[in-house]
């Protein structure tokens, strides 16, 4: 087990080097005049020179990459071209906002998806089942940016209500913060929950027809024990895989949510940085996203073993 985890972590480290090399090369695929973007068209050639020298943009690309990797290994992600702020410092400031968005939306997704998906399968072809299926197909079809936009506009039109936009700090202003985050993250979760409901429903439908469920019922187990210990546990494998993918995808969804709600998180930061070729910022956020996705994949694989003793880790 430890050996497996160690090998997977080494694999992740190797993958990260490749990922960062790919992003590094991709961002330099089309030569962009970063200095002109930042300093404007009226700067003198000397100013361009000084700018390029300051950020090491006049070095050959391999040297730039090695310096960047070296810095990252020391916890230094460089400075933003645009604001000259330390990327690491800014990252720590913005991270809690994105974290809260992702955690809340994921919680809504997981709870709604699994609970309604399971109920829908256990009461197959009941009005409740049709309701869940209808909700999920509509939830899949309405884009999250549209739901979030409607969330801003219609309460404002009907009741003159606006959420407290400034309350981005959970600990300074808990009630305002939740007023801002909970409805928005719920909207973001609808699409993902719809997908998860459908998968949970079909996974459950598969499981409830299995012999061991009939056996469990025949030996007189309580219905609750059958659902939780026999059905849920066996239906969870595909559900967990999808949940892992959705948790990663929520990092993308967070960009949209932050943009609509005007939250100063990692998403809006990366979005603005992409527009002005602020490479150190783009690299840091992309690397962070890649690490998160890979660690989630590892956790999902490990949870398979915990859930199903028949699965052995490959050696």
């Amino acid at each position: 087990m430890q050996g497996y985890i160690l090998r997977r972590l080494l694999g992740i480290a190797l993958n990260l080097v490749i990922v960062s090399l790919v992003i590094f090369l991709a961002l330099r695929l089309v030569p962009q005049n970063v200095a002109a973007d930042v300093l404007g068209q009226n700067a003198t050639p000397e100013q361009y020179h000084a700018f390029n020298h300051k950020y090491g943009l006049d070095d050959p690309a391999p040297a730039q990459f090695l310096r960047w990797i070296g810095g990252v290994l020391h916890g230094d992600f460089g400075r933003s071209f645009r604001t000259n702020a330390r990327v690491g410092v800014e990252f720590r400031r913005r991270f809690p906002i994105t974290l809260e968005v992702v955690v809340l939306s994921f919680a809504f997704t997981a709870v709604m998806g699994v609970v309604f998906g399971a109920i829908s399968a256990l009461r197959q072809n009941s009005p409740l089942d049709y309701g869940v299926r209808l909700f999920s197909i509509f939830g899949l079809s309405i884009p999250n940016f549209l739901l979030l936009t409607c969330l801003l506009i219609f309460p404002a039109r009907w009741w003159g209500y606006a959420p407290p936009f400034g309350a981005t700090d959970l600990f300074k202003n808990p009630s305002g913060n939740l007023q801002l985050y909970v409805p928005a993250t719920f909207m973001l979760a609808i699409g993902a929950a719809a997908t998860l409901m459908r998968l949970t429903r079909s996974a459950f439908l598969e499981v409830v027809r299995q012999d061991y469920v009939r056996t469990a019922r025949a030996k007189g187990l309580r219905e609750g024990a059958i659902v939780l210990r026999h059905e849920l546990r066996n239906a969870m494998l595909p559900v967990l895989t999808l949940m892992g993918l959705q948790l990663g995808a929520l990092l993308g969804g967070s960009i949209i949510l932050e943009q609509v709600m005007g939250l100063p998180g990692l998403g809006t930061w990366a979005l603005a940085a992409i527009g002005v070729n602020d490479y150190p910022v783009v690299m840091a956020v992309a690397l962070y996203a890649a690490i998160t996705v890979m660690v989630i994949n590892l956790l999902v694989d490990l949870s398979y073993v915990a859930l199903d003793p028949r699965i052995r880790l490959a050696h």
Partner: protein
Amino acid sequence: MASATEAVLLGARAETSESRTLRRITGMMRRQPLGVFGALVCVGFVFIALAAPLLAPHDPHLFAGPRLSGPSHAFPFGTNNLGQDVLARTIYGAQVSLIVGVASVFLGTVIGSALGLVAAYWGGWIDAVVQRSLEVVASFPGLMLILVVVAALGRPSVARNVNLLTLGWELRVVVIAVGLGFIFGTTRIVRSVALTERHAPYVEAAIACGAGWARIMLRHLLPNVMAYIIVGVSVTLGLAILAEASLSFLGYGVPPGTPAWGTDLSGINRQFFLQAPWLVLAPGGAISLTLLGFNFLGDALRDELDPRLRGR
């Protein structure tokens, strides 16, 4: 028993292939009423995109009436802050969705299927290289990957609706960015199905008969994975349309000013949503209805074609 089977086989043979296809389709339509609804919505969407210049009552780029006037007889969906007809912009918006959706799904499916077949057929280090490079692509959350690709290739500049092909060429960066995300999923499915077929007796028989690799891939493996590819395409088309709209919504897809559903929901327009909610409802309703159609159609096709669900 034998004669009964024979009679069935002879009967099937006597039937022309066209009438058999027709019967299969009518059977599908009877079983999947929601799928028929979805197909009608999709056909309507394609028709509106192709016939936009004939259907739109006004030029979507030009001043047509008073600014921000509500839905009326002359402007059924109202006008925006530039006095442009929202109905015309919504109709023209279908063009961007259609061209980016179809082109990116085509790109992702063709490259993904080819990689999947190659990886399954040759195996060994080729398979390993394909798998590892796709893992790199898959380690970005979808939208992040699309944004990085757009950042790398440069945003599309000005897209004027001259015709659909020119528009598609102008938006090639968006097409590549969206399509790249679909390669991974397609490759994974095609590879896993082709792997199980790879060592089937009929493939070995074909090899024994001296068939080359191209023949085996295209004539033997491809038809067997086709059902999976078709199901994948129908689901992916909706995702592609959604991805383009999200990208345009974030301001990195279609350039501002171009009529597109995602763009019309973003940027300067947002300042007027509160006083003019029809600006949200028209493009928002159009994209939701289109996605609903593709989802219903995709579900029906999956139920009918996906071999894994057969016999349930």
